[in-house]
């Protein structure tokens, strides 16, 4: 009698318990409570919408040159003023969101894929391959990251695509190291041993158990890395090593604007503000995600 009631109540209890402590729900609740994180997420969402709806929002194209209207101050017609070619800066900043977000997402995605692959191989297989990959990471981290990016672009030639590749490459070791250390700790868990004992293949263990267990830190690190990637892309653009004219890349816009600092300071206000806000958004969101998903990483 006793046993049968136990059996009945057990699933219900388990379900209840799951509802109460589901880690995703817990994380979402903690994220929702964090005002700074929500502000960050709102800023990010805002820029994503701006980027997607750019053709609707922007009153003019990115390269509509009207020379009689060059260097006009901000007004009702041109909210952010016009640049030295008479182009509407507001429209260019709006379209610029596409470039910056695209470069940020794509570069970080690239470094996550390659970094995870190398990190998993290093952490799971160990031995000489771990030593080799870890040393390569050490060497890459021995360069100040922007310098390595500059070096890569100097070799490949300046362009937005090469800037993206460079940013993806310099971020690989960060993800690689992160995943490697996760794999090393997860590998020793009993359920991995159990999976091995029942003859599960390495690739399945990696994909089904180790990778999902490493997802939280990747999301956190990834969000923060997008912030850095956007700044790095803008920095390369500013140095003339990224986007080519007439692309409205924010960093490139700033470097063009610096020649008109005295006559038309507004040409440099808005692109810079856009970079700062986007980066701030990703940083705030990343910090919030870290506190919600992975409290251990706090320091």
């Amino acid at each position, binding site marked *: 009698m006793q046993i049968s009631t136990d059996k009945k109540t057990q699933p219900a209890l388990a379900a209840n318990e799951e509802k109460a402590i589901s880690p995703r729900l817990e994380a979402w609740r903690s994220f929702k409570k964090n005002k700074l994180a929500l502000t960050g997420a709102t800023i990010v969402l805002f820029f994503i919408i701006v980027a997607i709806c750019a053709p609707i929002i922007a009153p003019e194209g990115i390269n509509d040159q009207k020379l009689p209207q060059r260097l006009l101050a901000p007004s009702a017609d041109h909210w952010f003023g016009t640049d030295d070619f008479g182009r509407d800066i507001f429209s260019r900043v709006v379209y610029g969101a596409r470039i910056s977000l695209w470069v940020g997402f794509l570069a970080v995605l690239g470094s996550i894929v390659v970094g995870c692959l190398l990190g998993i191989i290093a952490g799971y297989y160990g031995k000489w391959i771990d030593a080799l990959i870890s*040393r390569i990471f050490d060497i890459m981290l021995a360069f100040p990251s*922007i310098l390595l990016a500059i070096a890569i672009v100097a070799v490949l030639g300046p362009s937005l695509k090469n800037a993206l590749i460079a940013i993806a490459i310099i971020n690989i070791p960060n993800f690689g190291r992160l995943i490697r250390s996760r794999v090393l700790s997860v590998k020793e868990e009993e359920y991995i041993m159990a999976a091995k004992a029942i003859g599960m293949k390495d690739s399945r263990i990696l994909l089904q158990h180790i990778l999902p267990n490493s997802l939280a830190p990747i999301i956190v690190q990834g969000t923060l890395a997008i912030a850095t990637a956007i700044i790095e892309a803008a920095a390369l653009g500013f140095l003339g090593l990224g986007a080519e004219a007439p692309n409205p890349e924010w960093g490139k816009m*700033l*470097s063009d604007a610096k020649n008109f600092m005295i006559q038309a300071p507004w040409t440099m206000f808005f692109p*810079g503000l856009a970079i*700062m806000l986007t980066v701030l958004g990703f940083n705030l969101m990343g910090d919030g995600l870290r506190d919600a998903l992975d409290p251990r990483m706090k*320091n």
Partner: protein
Amino acid sequence: MFAYTIRRLLMLIPVLFGLSLIVFFMIRAIPGDPAQVILGQLATKEAIAELTKQLGLDQPWYTQYANYVGGLFSGDLGESLRTKSPISEEIWPYLAATIELSFCAMVIAVFIGVNAGIISAWFQNSWFDYAAMVLALVGVSMPIFWLGLMEQWVFAINLEWLPTSGREEVRDPVSAITHIYTLDTLLQGRLDQFWDVIRHLVMPSIALATIPMAIIARITRSTMLEVMKSDFIRTARAKGLRMFWVVYKHSLKNAVIPILTIIGLQTGLLLGGAILTETIFSWPGIGRYIYEAIGYRDYPVIQSGILVVAFIFVMINLTVDLMYAAVDPRIKYQ
């Protein structure tokens, strides 16, 4: 400590080897014929052949690499294609300018960052704490090239308080001894010039200091908050010790390790930021040296510049690790 130092130095060997290898292959990774790319489309065959020979590209790569590393050990960094002078002689004035700028930036970042962090922790949840932490958040997200431009616009163009760019008054150049101008002007007793050099240093140092300052402030605050919760702090306060001493002596002493680490890490990162800052403020440092070399496709200068900066970066990180071990005895047993 000795064994740890040795181990840490041994770990340096593969990193330095890798560094030299990457920098060495940089020029060889240029798509197409490097000599052709450097000289451009209009170059004659003879010029290309000569440059190929000068760069040693006509030899097998292992011979080239052996020569290159051999050269490095004897202090030979190659020859600039543009100025035709040895890079090892040319590089010091640039390096000195960067060292001076980075040092100033770090002093500002540490002084303001650490104190802001301490006061924020001391008066947790006060308006100062909120303001400082919001500023720190903005500071971390600040594109320093934009901050630099804004500084120029406000302080040089509108207020006319500070010079827009450069390192010295062009009409009254500093006669260099060490190439660290603050030192040089003091050595020569030229206080007017010293003041001028300081005025040139202010804006680029602040721009460069912003991000490390923000990060140092945040870490200092969180570490101090943790320490100030400990029992011995409560004891110190119970003894009737003045809060100032509790904070600046007892707490800070115990919070010093994470703060020191972050300061070290940020010092290394400054070198990267220096490239951008130097470009904006026409600061003749190593970053600008490399940047200009990219424009002239002066690959030997790019290579050696990057190698020197990366080498300094590695050395700073090593020093931080060793200091870390010296302060915290637990490290070396790991």
